[in-house]
């Protein structure tokens, strides 16, 4: 029994230590924003890498999500004659939940992994140490541009995902399920509130920060050559995905919980 309690206690303290290291890492990255030099070109490059090149994958997942959502809610609501709610369900689900969560998960897989691999390779090949010896703070040069890009880019991606996702529902609703186009759009517009979109964009900013933080953190602390970089990449994607889902629940509670 004592052994069991000791192992639980050890695991708890290890969790606290890991959380502390992560928070310290994030604060060191953000603290670099408080004093020059700044690297606007690097921030722009990260925004392009994270946003522009993620557009196809986010767009595709958004449109199919909107289409499936329309189909599923139609077949479900038909059981109690509530088919007219399809447009409302699609737009609220996409803007509040599915847009930010799916975009976050897609970007975690595409960009978070790439960040961890790039920074991890720089770590195991001494490039991060080389940055330091060249009077360049790695947090300022590598971490901050990625954190800022994550914070800014994912909300922009989610705006696109929202539009495409709602369009996917509209296409299925009007072309397959027989809704009148004008009434579908009216339903969409009538029940959509500003807060639905804002909450989704706030979530997206948090998710983008999480993706970048996990990519940078695991890459920065990778060890032991190619295997270590591979592990860092896996950890970055898995931890970002879990944190996105966890923080999504907390943010939803904060915005809409009673």
């Amino acid at each position: 029994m004592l052994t069991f309690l000791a192992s639980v206690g050890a695991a708890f303290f290890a969790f606290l230590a890991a959380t502390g290291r992560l928070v310290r890492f994030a604060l060191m990255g953000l603290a670099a924003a408080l004093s020059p030099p700044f690297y606007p070109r690097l921030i722009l490059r990260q925004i392009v890498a994270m946003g522009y090149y993620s557009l196809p994958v986010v767009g595709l997942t958004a449109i199919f999500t909107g289409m499936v959502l329309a189909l599923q809610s139609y077949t479900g609501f038909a059981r109690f004659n509530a088919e007219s709610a399809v447009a409302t369900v699609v737009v609220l689900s996409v803007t509040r939940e599915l847009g930010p969560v799916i975009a976050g998960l897609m970007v975690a897989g595409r960009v978070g992994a790439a960040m961890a691999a790039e920074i991890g390779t720089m770590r195991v090949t001494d490039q991060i140490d080389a940055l330091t010896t060249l009077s360049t703070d790695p947090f300022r040069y590598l971490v901050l541009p990625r954190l800022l890009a994550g914070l800014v880019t994912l909300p922009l991606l989610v705006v696109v995902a929202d539009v495409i996702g709602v369009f996917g529902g509209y296409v299925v609703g009007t072309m397959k399920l027989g809704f009148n186009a004008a009434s579908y759009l009216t339903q969409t517009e009538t029940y959509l509130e500003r807060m639905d979109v804002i909450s989704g964009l706030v979530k997206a900013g948090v998710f983008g920060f999480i993706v970048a933080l996990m990519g940078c953190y695991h890459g920065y602390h990778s060890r032991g050559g190619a295997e270590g970089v591979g592990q860092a990449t896996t950890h970055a994607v898995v931890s970002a995905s879990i944190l996105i889902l966890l923080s999504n629940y907390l943010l939803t509670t904060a915005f809409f919980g009673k």
Partner: protein
Amino acid sequence: MSDGATPKIAVRGLEKSFGPKRVLDGLDIDCAVGESLVIIGGSGTGKSVLIKCILGLLHPEAGSIRIDGAETVGMPRGDRTRLMQKFGMLFQGSALFDSLRVWENVAFGLIQGRGMERAKAREIALIKLAAVGLGAEVGELHPAELSGGMQKRVALARAIAAEPEIIFFDEPTTGLDPIMADVINDLIVTLVRQLGATAVSITHDMVSARKIADRIAMLHKGKIIWQGPTSEIDDSNNPFVDQFVNGHAEGPIQMEVRAL
């Protein structure tokens, strides 16, 4: 120092462990201004750890590291970044930034570290590349397009680009053929002299050590067990040094090898 001058680098009682393994165990060493010190020792004896502690890339558990008489252990990040402007470093694996072109690698410390304009930094980078025998056309390539020897020369050009006061060389000839190794050794000697810099090198290549060192120190089990002028390395009367210099398997340094 015999003349009473402040050493450029003074290390006292340095201790560093990784888990249960104590790598540096109360290490003491000095390096005078303008001196070329080479630290020799077997693989895994802590040579790279010593350099990384001096550079502030690793934090020792105990001891003192003074640069120009000023304590650097526990130095705040901002002061450390300024101190780095005194240093140049040639990494064992070159550690070139693979996303940047060769000239951008050489000019990196000038542009990012010192805020120099790109055009001026590029001019200086091309001069430094020429100093290591590489033409301007190489400057436009990426590191992945270069051979190991060329990468080492680019790394050397990067290490001297900002004309540092102290240059560290980590295994500068490892992985190179003997001719290219000699080219790198010659470049190190010439460039360090031209800059009037203090040089600290670590290597287990005795040919390289004899060529670039004013003084050689041997690191074993976390301590400096012998040091002296290069000319005395063959008459050290130290069985550890003799075994290492002559490359004998038999001697006081025992490698842990298990029978198959």
